[in-house]
């Protein structure tokens, strides 16, 4: 069970990245390569707030939300909005991720910084396995977040507008949806979410400048497994990737962990090219 807890916790971290990717993708059909770096910045802000400034966790959550919201908003204005060709977004958001990596190194250095978890650091024994409280919290937060976002997307006008944009951008505009504002809003909100999640990810991974790079690719795999645009898919994809990685490391060896993840990834895409939770639709041409 120790192995399962660890795998699920890692899967939850990957799912957080994929959720951010998805929020941006649903609103703008673009892919924000810097989403994992936003979580990294969130973990650094959590370190600064909790360790350097000795602030209470709720205040640090608000601080991280505000800081990463601002970073994401700036990224949208500088790296997304001026572009006329949406394909160029891939390059500019990749550039933003490199800039954020460099900025994190300049501000916080290159060494890993421990982020305390407000739920405690002692090892718990549950169902015959051992886990840190933050690992259980990661899984719980991932499940709650996915349920909340799924419910909100169907319940509120804003969520429906985003879904409409995702289906047909032009039609949504004709129905009065302010597409530009919603794209900006979803980008910044994905950033704000990443900031708050930094409080949970940092205690598991340390706040370290290489974190964004470590998470970005796995986050993309999770997104593709679950299906572009599917929030529940990110949870299932994340948990699959986390578990496959942990089990492959245990029973095949650490050198096969990433290979096993990509083998599962390719197998799933061969069976369901659009991902587990998105259906391909035929179009008359």
């Amino acid at each position, binding site marked *: 069970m120790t192995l399962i807890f660890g795998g699920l916790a890692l899967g939850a971290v990957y799912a957080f990245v994929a959720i951010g990717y998805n929020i941006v993708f649903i609103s703008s059909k673009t892919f924000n390569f810097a989403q994992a770096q936003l979580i990294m910045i969130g973990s650094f802000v959590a370190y600064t707030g909790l360790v350097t400034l000795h602030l209470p966790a709720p205040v640090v959550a608000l601080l991280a939300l505000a800081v990463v919201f601002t970073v994401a908003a700036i990224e949208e204005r500088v790296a997304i909005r001026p572009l006329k060709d949406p394909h160029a977004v891939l390059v500019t958001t990749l550039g933003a991720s490199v800039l954020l990596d460099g900025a994190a190194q300049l501000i916080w250095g290159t060494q890993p910084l421990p982020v305390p978890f407000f739920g405690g650091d002692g090892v718990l024994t549950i169902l015959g396995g051992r886990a840190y409280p933050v690992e259980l919290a990661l899984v719980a937060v991932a499940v709650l977040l996915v349920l909340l976002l799924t419910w909100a997307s169907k319940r509120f006008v804003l969520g429906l507008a985003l879904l409409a944009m995702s289906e047909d951008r032009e039609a949504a505009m004709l129905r009065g949806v302010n597409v530009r504002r919603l794209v900006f809003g979803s980008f910044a909100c994905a950033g704000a979410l990443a900031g708050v999640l930094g409080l949970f990810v940092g205690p598991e*991974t340390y706040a370290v400048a290489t974190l964004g790079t470590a998470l970005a690719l796995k986050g993309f795999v999770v997104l593709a497994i679950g299906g572009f645009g599917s929030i529940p898919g990110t949870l299932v994809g994340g948990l699959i990737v986390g578990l496959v990685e942990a089990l492959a490391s245990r029973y095949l060896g*650490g050198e096969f962990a990433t290979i096993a993840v990509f083998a599962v990834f390719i197998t799933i895409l061969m069976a369901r090219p659009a991902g587990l939770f998105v259906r391909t639709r035929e179009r008359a041409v």
Partner: protein
Amino acid sequence: MNRHVLVLGAVVSSAALVLAGCGGAASSGGGAGDPYRVLVTGGLSAQGVLATNSKTSVISAQASADEINKTGGIAGRRIEVTVVDDGGDPTTAVTKLREAIAKRKPDLYLNSGPSVIASATLPILQQNKILSFNIGPTNESADPGKFPLNFDLSPSPTDYAKGFIAHAKEKGYQKIGILYGSTSYGASFVREMHQALTAAGLQVVGEQQFDAKALDMTPQLQNLRGSSPDAIAMTAYGAPVGYVLKSLAKIGWTVPVLGDTAVSATSLVSTPPPDGVLGTDQVANLMMEVFDSTVYDPADTSVNTAVAAMKAKAEGGVIPSTLINAYNYDALALVAAAAADVGKADDPSAIAKAIEKPEVLARAKTAILHDYHYSATSHSPNATADAFVFIKPSRLDSGQFRP
């Protein structure tokens, strides 16, 4: 016809002169009154730890030059150190080196790593017959048959393994597990460690690799635990060190962990909470391999002199990283001893031959590694086990651990 031959001859002669001017390196001079020119390159503008290590490397050369100049320089020539920022990029390093050679050929070249810089610059140094010392060894850099004027300063993985064996035997460990990252150094570490441990009569009961980007080492440690080792030999740097320690605590395994010099260079283990884990249960079973010079000893005059000289050169008086990056201090001491043996400093081949002599190496006032064992067949330091010690994680001050 004769006129054509004359014109052709003139053109060919002119072209040859021009090509000779372009291709040939500028003379280094090298007269008794000339300074002994040392070119030091390092990734000063690189990102992260590479820049920090390069700064230590550069100030170690400057500090060594100051100390040797106080006693008359190298064969009577005052050392002049020129520092060039290569950004840690081999292309830039090659360009800067070529520029420096074209301007005025240095007598000695010191690079501050990494290995790719050595790979890129060694052929140029060889072509221009420039004596060099190298912090980032390559597969061929210590081979005098290929690069007779180059000497590696960093011990090889085989040398580091000697320290592990001595410590394991002292502690009575018979069965060793090996944990390593998916890097080229990790591959080299496991290969050399396995070979050396087995040759020393110890048993390697398990080898586990982790992805350099892995965030959890629990599965690898569970695998190793299954083979019941007496201790784990580990190479890791940065966050992976923390992941290993966290995972060990999670599974409640108290096996002794023997970390290499990369582990000791990770500030997480030498910094007390809340910025690090020094003094916590996580490092209770960790021992780290370091050079004996990297541990503070008030009686070690040569190292303390080097540290004082480096602090005098360092920005704000702070040595940016551990003394393990300060090999260049020894490079100049080795050249000074060799030049004293030869009687002059302007013959790089003679200096290189002198550095291969045991009596010259014994006279060299090195500090970072007290003994180098270069020979006509190997330009690797061939450090002995006593060059290394294993210490508990401890506070780092002025590049040295203070257990």
